[in-house]
């Protein structure tokens, strides 16, 4: 059907072109694959268009013509200079015909302010001007959405940006006015030093999130362009990296153009085509629209050879008798991808230590980043029941199913042996391998995540780099027990208003890491969500009596739960300290069971992966930290340091969300499987 439509389009286009009727384009309707909000649609691609309706995608012919703007300035700001021959495109939308009349403006002189001539006059305001000229536009959420490209490969240009990379935008209600363009991209500036610079032929800037490629630009009510990665035209290609190619000199400024966004950590790789050196940073870059982030002069030294240190002590304990040791290990990263692993490991660990109580008790931890290469990238794919159907030759033999995640595992003995032989805190006799909480970051973008926990302290949190760092979200269950104390009342439907009041959890692969490794693995907490229609738990919780107890955040009884004496008996006092402690109670549901399991707060990380552990969970985590560190837990001391703030509910974001941003859909995902328990 798609091909037939395309042929029809070509035919109509040819007729229009031969007849020279106008430059109004033919609209090509396409069938929309599915409602993009449906949970069942777990493909990594979203289709631009109104949900449930058709996609109207217009195509133009002048894509990418003559795009040369460059920068000049005095170091505190940059001016954008038109070059002779530069063109931009003016587009309008005729809602009665569904067509997009357009015309192209061209300057012959250039300059910071340039005169433009154009081919035809348009009649329907508002007029959208896009530079460089584009080939795709559609309607999304009642407004025009333009297909633009920030190139994945850019040309190194001394003192300026790569030609054509400055996608810019102007909206006006009259065609007779001067056009003032707003830059939609963000820019990174750097210069290089070191004798190896003259041999460099490419510089690659990489982050955990999308930073270049085909994307959709929309406009806020105030005219500000917004570039989003959450809506796609079919066939769009995106990348988490930008490569600048050409020759490089010391003392010269170079620029990269990137899609605005936050990069929690980044790498820069300098290559001569044969050898390369990668520098890794844990810096969070807020790459805002129309801002140049100046990284200054980067010294790359005298050679292009990586340091290749296999064990990095990223966090070092300064308190406690014994360090609380964590090992972060690489899986499915080839030798040349280990810098990606290091970047992700630092980003993930930084995120975990931004969440209470890890934030306050960070001084007790040793975090080791241990690199080991795999022969192949990724992870093996199973049939969902443990049988590998698409093998990958990876160091720890990680694997899980495409549609289900419950069989996610690895060679667990090999993991323990590796940590035992390579983690300096084990080699030096501070801990055994089983005592080092281990986080495996997997170089696979499929959805997944699980924790293997043992009756002693051993654990392995397995976390893939889900959807290449894209934003995903998790919902509170649709149904819950109608009665907090008994199952006699059956279930009730949770209203959208109730869900909104709890906050919609949004995050990325690191939120899965926080839940699987921070929650299950290190902290030995059980899940607090439940599956709708899942069996009702009827037994006691045996993991409470493990050598190292597991799951004390869940009670098998409504009366006298594990948090009774510490919290419920002191509730009025706690509420007088901070009203947020009033969230403590006894709530029906948890441990994947809708009935006969109880939790201490309505919602937490162990429910929807948010960056918030409940008060009782924080107590259990601190007890665990101090137990390993050789210190005694004291409830009063705990509360003197405690912060019960849930960022999702209690902190108003400083970010301003415009009308367009609010229309960008969230990718809602199901919760991942409960931890797998092992005897040891």
């Amino acid at each position, binding site marked *: 059907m798609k091909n037939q439509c395309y042929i029809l389009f070509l035919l109509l286009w040819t007729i229009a072109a031969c007849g020279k009727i106008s430059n109004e384009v033919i609209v090509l309707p396409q069938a929309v694959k599915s409602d993009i909000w449906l949970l069942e649609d777990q493909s990594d691609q979203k289709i631009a268009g109104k949900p449930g309706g058709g996609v109207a995608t217009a195509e133009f012919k002048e894509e990418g013509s003559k795009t040369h703007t460059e*920068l000049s300035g005095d170091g505190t700001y940059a001016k954008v200079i*038109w070059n002779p021959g530069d063109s931009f495109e003016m587009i309008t939308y005729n809602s009665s015909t569904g067509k997009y009349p357009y015309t192209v403006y061209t300057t012959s002189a250039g300059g910071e302010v*340039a*005169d433009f001539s154009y081919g035809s006059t348009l009649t329907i305001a508002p007029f959208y001007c896009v530079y460089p000229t584009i080939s795709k536009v559609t309607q999304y959420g009642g407004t025009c959405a333009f297909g633009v490209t920030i190139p994945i490969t850019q040309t190194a240009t001394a003192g300026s940006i790569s030609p054509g990379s*400055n996608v810019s935008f102007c909206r006006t209600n009259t065609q007779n006015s001067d056009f003032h363009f707003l830059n939609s991209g963000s820019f990174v500036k*750097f210069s290089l030093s070191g004798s190896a610079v003259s041999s460099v032929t490419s510089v690659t800037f990489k982050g955990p999130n999308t930073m270049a490629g085909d994307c959709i630009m929309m406009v806020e009510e105030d005219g500000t362009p917004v570039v989003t990665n959450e809506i796609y035209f079919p066939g769009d290609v995106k990348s988490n990296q930008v490569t600048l190619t050409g020759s490089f000199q010391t003392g010269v400024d170079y620029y990269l153009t990137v899609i605005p966004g936050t990069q929690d950590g980044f790498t820069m790789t300098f290559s001569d085509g044969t050898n390369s050196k990668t520098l890794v940073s*844990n810096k969070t870059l807020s790459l805002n629209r129309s801002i140049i982030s100046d990284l200054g002069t980067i010294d790359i030294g005298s050679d292009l050879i990586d340091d290749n240190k296999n064990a990095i002590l990223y966090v070092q304990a300064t308190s406690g008798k014994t360090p609380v040791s964590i090992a972060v290990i690489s899986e499915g990263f080839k030798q040349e991808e280990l810098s990606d692993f290091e970047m992700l490991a630092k980003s993930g660990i930084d995120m975990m230590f931004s969440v209470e109580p890890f934030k306050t008790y960070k001084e007790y931890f040793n975090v080791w980043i241990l690199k080991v290469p795999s022969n192949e990238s990724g992870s093996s794919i199973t049939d969902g029941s443990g049988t590998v159907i698409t093998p990958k030759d990876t160091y720890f033999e990680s694997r899980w199913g495409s549609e289900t995640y419950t069989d996610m595992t690895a060679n667990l003995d090999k993991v323990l042996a590796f940590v035992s032989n390579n983690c300096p805190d084990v080699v030096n006799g501070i801990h055994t391998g089983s005592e080092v909480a281990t986080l495996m970051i997997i170089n696979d973008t499929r959805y997944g995540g699980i924790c293997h926990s043992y009756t002693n302290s051993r654990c392995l949190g397995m976390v893939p780099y889900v959807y290449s760092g894209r934003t995903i979200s998790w919902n509170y269950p649709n149904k819950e027990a109608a009665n907090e104390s008994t199952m006699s009342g059956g279930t009730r439907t949770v209203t959208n208003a109730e869900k909104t009041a709890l906050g919609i959890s949004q995050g990325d692969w690191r939120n899965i890491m926080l839940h699987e490794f921070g929650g299950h693995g290190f902290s030995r907490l059980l899940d607090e969500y439940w599956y709708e229609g899942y069996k009702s738990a009827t037994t006691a919780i045996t993991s409470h009596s493990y050598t190292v107890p597991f799951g004390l955040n869940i009670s098998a009884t409504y009366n006298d739960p594990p948090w009774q004496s510490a919290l419920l008996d002191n509730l009025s006092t706690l509420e007088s300290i901070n009203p947020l402690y009033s969230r403590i109670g006894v709530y029906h549901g948890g441990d994947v069971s809708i009935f006969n399991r109880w939790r201490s707060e309505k919602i937490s990380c162990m429910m929807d992966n948010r960056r918030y552990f409940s008060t009782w969970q924080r107590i259990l985590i601190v007890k665990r930290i101090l137990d390993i560190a050789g210190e005694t837990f004291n409830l009063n001391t705990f509360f003197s340091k405690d912060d019960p703030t849930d960022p999702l509910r209690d902190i108003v974001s400083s970010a301003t969300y415009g009308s367009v941003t609010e229309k960008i859909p969230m990718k809602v995902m199901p919760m991942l499987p409960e931890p797998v328990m092992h005897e040891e």
Partner: protein
Amino acid sequence: MRHYQSPMLTSVPLTTEQTLLTGSHERIPVIPIDPGFTYNYYEEE
């Protein structure tokens, strides 16, 4: 000085007073950022 060809879809004519149709961009501020290419702590040899 005018720069346009015969309009094809005109219903709103351009004003004769308009002498220039110009295009310009907003200027871009530069913010210095330490790239942080150093490990925070000790590295194992």
